[in-house]
């Protein structure tokens, strides 16, 4: 199962994004709001850097001991009457879930937002069973109506504006109201309410699974996860194997980092928490509960230089500050996981073959690393990916030759000095008024949109040498 969204070349997706003015305006506005919100929250909390370090420590410790904590979690879930299934691949996860659905003879499933189910392609797999699947997160629901994919891991419909959403509701559900967000949300709420009440099975993702108690916790601003776990008789949680914390204490730290970093909120409107099956004295919750823990390539990162990619708490703050994302949008990454974390994580989970452009879709500006609440060195990991691609011999021939040249040039003071003498003459045929407007070879890409200042006749080192001589005379 590939994480790829569409079978198109990377550059085509980029072009589609760049040409989509609606999307770019929506993304740019949202980035500005999220960024301001995050900075305000960080300042109000105080000692933000210390909190980030604590977040990093917790994630490092947990992932280093992930076998221990997963074992503890599964024991606790089983103690509370739940079934635990470890899925090595997307296919295994999907077929287990399908089997549960079929055994229950379910007619309707409600889901709360979950990126891991996007990753494993669960909705497509469930479509084969003939069961109706309803996404209950507002953004996901909009995309489901349109047959579209999320373009952001926290706010999946970020690329849509309210007018587009109004149109979708009108076309697909006969909506006749305005494009006011309150009215749109009220309409969606009403539509979804009957789905919640009819559903036989609920499926949620997981923000933090708490190993000590076997509890699944989720953050939402719509409360839909509460509806999904309380109403249906059968409940399935799908979690990436690294979405785990040792105890409630660490969860408290991380959830505050998550919500502040994601949307600039101290906490989301709802924090959902549920544990195993309904007990005798409880009035809601499932009678049948399944926890599906998904590996799907995550183990590839364990014990490697990419392990920190598993520290991610899916806040999306790296996406919210990324200038590349702002201009091309989430779909251009052509992966379930877009933005800087997507560019780091996707090749780890899914290999380079389908995603070889992603590590290069960054100017290495480091805004992502600076924003990450658990201090994942995202831009450095992109360089590591590039190193792997070079090691595998998978870069273009011309680039290999050029870099060989760059290596010789930088490694030899003699060759380097020659270049300082020759640069001016070499570029002279293309130079006019000390400027190059239409450069040769690799400079073409540069001069397509900007001028290049031509190298002057005298290099700095030649000036310095002359000056020294003059001084000595």
């Amino acid at each position: 199962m590939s994480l790829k969204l569409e079978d198109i070349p990377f550059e085509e997706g980029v072009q589609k994004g760049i040409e989509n003015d609606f999307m770019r305006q929506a993304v740019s506005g949202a980035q500005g709001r999220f960024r301001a919100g995050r900075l305000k929250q960080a300042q109000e909390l105080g000692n933000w850097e210390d909190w980030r370090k604590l977040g990093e420590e917790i994630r490092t410790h947990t992932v280093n001991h992930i076998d221990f904590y997963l074992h503890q979690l599964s024991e606790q879930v089983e103690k509370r009457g739940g079934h635990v299934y470890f899925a090595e691949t997307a296919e295994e996860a999907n077929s287990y879930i399908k089997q549960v659905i079929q055994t229950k003879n379910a007619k309707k499933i409600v889901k709360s937002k979950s990126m891991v189910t996007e990753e494993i392609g669960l909705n497509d797999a469930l479509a084969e069973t003939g069961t109706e699947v309803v996404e209950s997160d507002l953004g996901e629901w909009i995309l489901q109506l349109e047959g579209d994919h999320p373009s952001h891991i926290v706010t999946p419909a970020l690329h849509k504006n309210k007018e587009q959403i109004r149109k979708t509701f009108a076309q697909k559900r006969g909506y006749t109201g305005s494009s006011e967000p309150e009215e749109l949300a009220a309409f969606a709420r009403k539509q979804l309410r009957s789905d919640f009440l009819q559903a036989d099975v609920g499926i949620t993702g997981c923000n933090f699974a708490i190993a000590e108690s076997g509890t699944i916790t989720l953050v939402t601003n719509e409360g839909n996860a509460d509806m999904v776990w309380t109403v249906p008789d059968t409940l399935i949680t799908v979690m990436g194997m690294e979405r785990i914390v040792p105890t409630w204490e660490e969860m408290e730290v991380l959830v505050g980092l998550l919500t502040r970093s994601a949307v600039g909120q101290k906490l989301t409107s709802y924090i959902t928490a549920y544990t195993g099956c309904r007990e005798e004295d409880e009035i809601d919750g499932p009678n049948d509960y399944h926890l599906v823990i998904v590996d799907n390539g995550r183990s590839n990162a364990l014990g490697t230089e990419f392990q920190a990619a598993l520290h991610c708490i899916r806040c999306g703050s790296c996406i919210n500050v990324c200038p590349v994302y702002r201009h091309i949008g989430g779909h251009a990454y052509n992966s379930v996981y877009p933005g800087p974390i997507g560019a780091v994580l996707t090749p780890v989970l899914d290999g380079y073959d389908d995603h070889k452009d992603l590590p290069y879709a960054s100017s290495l500006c480091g805004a992502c690393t600076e924003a990450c609440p658990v201090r994942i060195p995202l831009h450095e990991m992109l360089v590591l990916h590039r190193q792997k691609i070079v090691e595998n011999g998978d870069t273009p021939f011309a680039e290999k030759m050029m870099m060989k040249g760059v290596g010789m040039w930088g490694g030899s003071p003699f060759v380097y000095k020659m270049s300082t003498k020759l640069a001016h003459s070499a570029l002279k045929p293309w130079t006019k008024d000390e400027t190059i407007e239409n450069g040769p070879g690799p400079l073409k890409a540069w001069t397509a949109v900007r001028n290049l200042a031509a190298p002057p006749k005298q290099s700095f080192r030649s000036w310095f040498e002359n000056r020294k001589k003059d001084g000595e005379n």
Partner: protein
Amino acid sequence: MKVSLFITCISDIMFPNVGKNTVEILERLGCEVDFPTLQTCCGQPAYNSGYLEEAKGSMKQMIRAFKDAEYVVGPSGSCVGMIREYPHVFKGDSEWEKPAQELAAKTFELTQFIVDVLGVKDVGSTFKGKVTYHPSCHMTRILGVKDAPKILLQNVKGIEFVELPSGEDCCGFGGTFSVKKPEISAEMVKEKSRHVTETGAEYLVGGDMGCLMNIGGRMQREGKNVKVIHISEILNTHN
């Protein structure tokens, strides 16, 4: 104080005035400036493209070139940032890790050196004009130099300083990124040019010639009448 100038390949070949200004500023502040001629490039173009072995060749050459230097000062946040990464690159290398650490510890970006090492906040220059400053990504995020350039600029006599909106956004240079993903880079530099224009500044100043070459080249292409200059030019002006 003895200072060895790390010119950076881009200023050596393309923008020698940056070096001249840097030498003159440092000398005026009482430093004795020498130029180790065995220096080449910091290795960043190869390193950031994933060509580790090719990059290491440059890095070793730089370590050799500055072996005897007391302080190494360069007019670029990005290239100095690369040198500060050398210990990380040579980690576990019994021959090169220690010299890499020594070089990283004595290497400073120009404004960082003036403010943090020399303790000077006013270099005594005069510059008339409306100026905005682009805080380049590697200067601020990799090297962590945020205040020094602004402190020095704000103390220049006659200057009218205006903040650049969304200054923290990358200009789209990114070294090889600009030619490897030119479509994306183009959108980023267009946006930066818009923000610079919004300020109404006559001059855009920065501490990294790579970024300035990118922004300046774009603004020139757009026919914008903004002069894009390295900070050393302002710090070395007395009009």
